[in-house]
């Protein structure tokens, strides 16, 4: 934890991080702006409370992102998989296989729901690669693993996500 009084730096940190934090959350909200705003707001209120009591974390942006991630996971875990309407389950699984790139809000929400059901390590890995577009080499360096190991974990996480979504669609 940094030693500088938190209250002096919080407004400045807010201004520096609000844009990236909102973008991080918004990309995981499938166009649901009220949800993105609720999550960002809750994240910041928790930050003010925690930072005032415990001091600033060494990397406030990472702290904020982590809390926002947990809030999103909690939210999606409480949701039921959204009905797909006219979209086929094959189309959904194809999106999962092809790197989550889709224009469909319904499919996006289903993927977020699936990610929230995964163990945190797997969901964070998939998010880092697919949403934050961090290259395997960078993830490998951050996680102190070989690139090959990261690729293997990504593949297994995708398979698990696919299985979860397939199971949900079959119900």
């Amino acid at each position: 934890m940094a030693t500088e009084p938190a209250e002096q730096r919080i407004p400045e940190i807010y201004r520096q991080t609000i844009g990236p934090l909102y973008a991080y959350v918004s990309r995981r909200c499938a166009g649901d702006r009220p949800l993105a705003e609720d999550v960002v707001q809750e994240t910041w209120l928790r930050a003010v409370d925690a930072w005032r009591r415990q001091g600033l974390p060494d990397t406030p942006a990472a702290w904020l992102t982590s809390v926002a991630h947990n809030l999103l996971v909690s939210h999606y875990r409480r949701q039921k998989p959204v009905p797909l309407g006219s979209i086929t389950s094959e189309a959904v699984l194809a999106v999962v296989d092809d790197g989550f790139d889709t224009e469909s809000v319904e499919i996006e929400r289903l993927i977020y729901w699936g990610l929230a059901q995964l163990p945190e390590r797997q969901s964070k890995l998939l998010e880092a690669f697919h949403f934050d577009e961090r290259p395997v080499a960078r993830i490998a360096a951050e996680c102190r693993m070989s690139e090959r190991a990261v690729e293997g974990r990504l593949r297994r996480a995708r398979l698990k996500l696919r299985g979860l979504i397939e199971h949900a669609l079959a119900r």
Partner: protein
Amino acid sequence: MTSMHEPTPEFERFLEWQVTSALRRQDRFARPSAIESNTYLRAVPIVLISILLGAGVVMASGRLKQNQLTRVLTVQQQGELQLAQMQVEVAQKQLAETKRRADVGVAPLDDLSEAERTLQAAQLQLQRVKLTIEEVQLSGRPAQDDVTAPLVNARDFVLERLQLDEQMLAASADEAEKHLQTMQKRFDAGLTPNVELLEAQAAVIRHMSDLRTIEGKTELRRKFIAGTVSAADATKQRLLISAQNELRSAEAALELAQRRLQEIGKQKQVGMASEVDAVKAQLEVLSRQQDIERLRERIAAIQKGSLPDGRK
């Protein structure tokens, strides 16, 4: 235009205000877990009832809470609205009665103008309550009068209320000026002592200071909304404006207290005032001097960037 993954300026400012005010509240009240706004505190009983009724703890329940909170707040405001409407009705009847009496020469013209001002004040107060109700209904939370409060559906309720307050204070200042003119004439004619004239002068200064405070807040509000001043700076400037205007009023009050002390000293010499009267007048002077000292310290602390209560 805001892109999909960017916060809207309104949301960004609202959250900045929430963060700043949470920090300020914690500083002010030294409550370690005081990050909840009044909105949250008021929502607590509603949340508990919802849980007991099995409403379930889901994130979406936030919106349910909000609706219930809005209803509770609106009911509270309806009570204030009825009171304000009654005050307008009473003021209207009072004015009609005073006019009737003035027409037959029973009531002086001063009474008539006072009844008109009372009616104007009641009407402005009614408008203020109506604005508050509109804000509660649109925002779903208690009305906020801080200069750093966010817009509500692109509408600036803070500024609208400040403008009403300005009208009310301008009317009071006019009234104080008229009273001062009357007292000046009476003093010139030897009909009133110097102290009463000073009292009237102090009242004018007090009203003008209040008016200047509101004008300062209005200007700050405009700057904050235009984005030319940050929430932290706006709060600092608001505190400074209030303290400087309080200081002006306190200086006028000190001058008045000193004159009163001199008068009582003269009266005491000729047996028209007691020792107790003299001590009271002296205490009044000391008390005003302390007020000024405290306000000067407060201004210095705000200028240095410390909190108003002296903590860094």
